[in-house]
């Protein structure tokens, strides 16, 4: 059965930020220059090829986009200036929208207006909720926990977290289904490879195999640690973290905000300068991601500073704004937007290793004839 070429996918991927798919003349330079491209998982050309031919099914099944860390070497050396690195990036965006069954991802990625509009609506909802439901406003001193009682916030936290997790997990489930189409692996295989998932999630180990300076990896690693720290502070340790005084959790808060600020500012400057390959192309969702993350860090610091300095109103306003930017972040960007790569990337890596293990086991067991 032959695969049917579909000429419309190239245009579709253009909406996700890949402008030059057709410029590729399939020389294979990108695939061969990439140190991560080896064995059975070769990219970016394979992905570009699926795009050129419009092989939507094959593309959905491809974990390869998640194996690329976008060092940009392929783009810098591409003889046709087809920007394969950016095509991989766009394909990741497209995949996120394919995994997402709600269609929200697609809206965010393909429409600036929808992304900004939805973010504003969510922010306004937060502001309105506060306007209607906030606790007593103590003006003599800063009493944030009175203005925004931890149990309420925690409840909201958990609602959001539940929603987020639901969408993320159902989408990840779809990714799993796409990627493992036609692959049979026993539970033991899945269990034996589970460490892969966590190692890659926490350390982005593969990135270190990329050529060139390791600084990009380091920056990203710090950003991830900062982000995860903040995540746990807010979702698990909120009662300790959101206090009106100082406690040891603040130390973690300092670290997290510092690396988040540094990371986002550094990325924003990079994207404005457009010197390195990874910063040459910016999709509107990239800007939104950085803007929200930067705003979260900045407003978080402001809340803390105002509270420490003892400015009650400023603290409360800053807090509302802080949560108003948190909302679109948590509700849009995390499950439906760029953040989700934090889940899909290690999951992709995990599924690749499961697939490899399954294939080799099957081959060894004589189920599938060894091709060699």
């Amino acid at each position, binding site marked *: 059965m032959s695969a049917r070429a579909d000429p419309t996918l190239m245009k579709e991927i253009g909406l996700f930020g890949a402008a030059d798919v057709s410029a590729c*003349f*399939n*020389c*294979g*330079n*990108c*695939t*061969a*220059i990439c140190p991560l*491209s*080896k064995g059975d998982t*070769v990219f970016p*050309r*394979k992905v570009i090829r699926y795009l050129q031919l419009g092989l939507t099914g094959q593309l959905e099944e491809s974990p390869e986009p998640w194996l690329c860390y976008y060092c940009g070497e392929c783009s*810098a*050396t*591409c*003889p*046709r*200036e087809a920007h394969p690195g950016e095509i991989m990036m766009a394909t990741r965006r497209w995949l996120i929208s394919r995994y997402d069954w709600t269609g929200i991802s697609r809206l965010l990625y393909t429409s600036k207006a929808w992304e900004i509009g939805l973010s504003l609506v969510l922010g306004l909802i937060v502001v309105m909720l506060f306007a209607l439901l906030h606790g007593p406003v103590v003006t003599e001193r800063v009493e944030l926990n009175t203005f925004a009682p931890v149990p309420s916030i925690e409840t909201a936290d958990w609602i959001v977290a539940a929603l987020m997790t639901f969408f993320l997990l159902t989408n990840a489930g779809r990714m799993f289904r796409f990627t493992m189409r036609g692959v049979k692996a026993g539970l033991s295989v899945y269990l034996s490879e589970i460490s892969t998932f966590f190692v890659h999630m926490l350390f982005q180990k593969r990135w270190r195999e990329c050529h060139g300076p390791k600084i990009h990896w380091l920056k990203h690693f710090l950003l991830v640690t900062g982000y995860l720290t903040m995540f746990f502070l807010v979702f698990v340790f909120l009662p300790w973290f959101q206090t009106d005084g100082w406690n040891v959790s603040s130390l973690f808060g300092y670290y997290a905000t510092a690396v988040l600020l540094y990371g986002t500012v550094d990325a924003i400057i990079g994207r404005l300068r457009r010197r390195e390959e990874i910063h040459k192309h910016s999709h509107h969702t990239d800007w939104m991601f950085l803007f929200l993350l930067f705003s979260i860090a900045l407003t978080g610091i402001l809340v803390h500073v105002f509270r420490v300095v003892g400015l009650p109103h400023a603290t409360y306003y800053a807090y509302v704004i802080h949560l108003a930017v948190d909302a679109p972040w948590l509700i849009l960007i995390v499950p439906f937007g760029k953040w989700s790569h934090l889940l899909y990337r290690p999951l992709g890596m995990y599924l690749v290793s499961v697939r490899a293990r399954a294939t080799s086991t099957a081959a060894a067991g004589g189920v599938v004839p060894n091709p060699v």
Partner: protein
Amino acid sequence: MNVRAATRVFDTLVIGGGIAGLQTALDLADLGLSVAIVEKDASIGGKMIGLSKVFPTLDCASCITTPKMAAAAHHENIRIFTLAEVSSVVRRGEDFTARVTLKPRFVDEDRCIGCRLCEYACDADVADDFEGGLSSHRAIYVPFTNAIPQIAVLDPEECNLCGKCVKVCPTDAVVLDQKPREIEIEVRSVVVATGFETTPMGARSEYHGNEIANVISPLTMERLLAPHGPYGRVLRPADGKVPDSVAFVQCAGSRDRSLGVPYCSRVCCMYAIKQAMLLSGSLPFADITIYTMDIRAFGKGYETFYHNASAMGIEFVKGKVARIDEVDDRNVEVRVEHIDERGQVEERRHDLVVLSLGMLPAADLRDRMPIGVSADGFVTVPKPTIEPCRTTEEGVFVSGTAAGPKDIVDAIAEAGAAAMAVSVYLKKKEPEGCAACAVTAGSDTP
């Protein structure tokens, strides 16, 4: 030859004494027109004289080039200026005046008899560029076996001023205090035949062309294959080992926007196949691989040539080599996506790797003469289809690779076309005359 007189008059100035310039000059001279060939090197012959054998006939390149060189040198209507560079061409009414700088040869051209006694006496060794730097010549030397003129030239950078050459010269031809001279040539038409240079070896940093000794240029491979070349056989430069595995990396200097050379250089596929065939002749047990994006065997008989190479066991791998590194024992590793039904990334080791470099224009004449040059650096041809040799300036024509990459067959055909265009142009300028009447041999011809 007398080159002292200040001004000379010719019908045509041919800039460049490579195969295209020579062919144009010969065709013009056969029509009775007087021609001055200005060649920047010490010998005419251009790039072709350095080649081993040429596709698709596998004739030796010298066998084609040297007779044309000799014919030009002996032709009564042709004057050759070597070590001469055109510094400007200015239009004067219907005609042109070319200022030509004669670089010092430090040897009197009229006296030198090419006996090479000076060369044998000289102690200073210089890397021989003609041999790809793989062997050396003396500081005073006759450029190469078939050079025309067979006259010694002294390299002032490398000369240690010992004076031995002066003493041994039987005709007192060595003149150590020669200075550059300017002459003027008045002509009625000009042919630009300045040819090409290869893309630099270091153009693509991932290939480490200037850093790995066993990664060589195709012109060096030509010399290795030439039986009268530096080693007389094929050895790899780093350690003199006989290579068991040789690879050719195609499009190493063309069809690559990241190098600023988007165009196809037109000859690299065929010269690589030719070199591969010659190699498999001299090293019958060596594995030979050609890494290529598309094989462009488009000329008459070229496809059969390519097919024969495949049949001989030369391996063609579709895929652009992305990276070349030196590994153990001075071997060379290439990384490539093998674009076939398996579609794997492969790291393959070879003893010797040839970068199939492309063609860049050898001379930028924009500031020296009234002539249009395109974005690719080659001479602009405003109407390439039906007037392939006309430039933007009336009376100025182009021949060979100065107007874009070309193989020898096409360059020679175009050289003939340039000669035709020149002669028709001169005819038009002189409605009453005939070609034979228009003969105005060099004014200083004795």
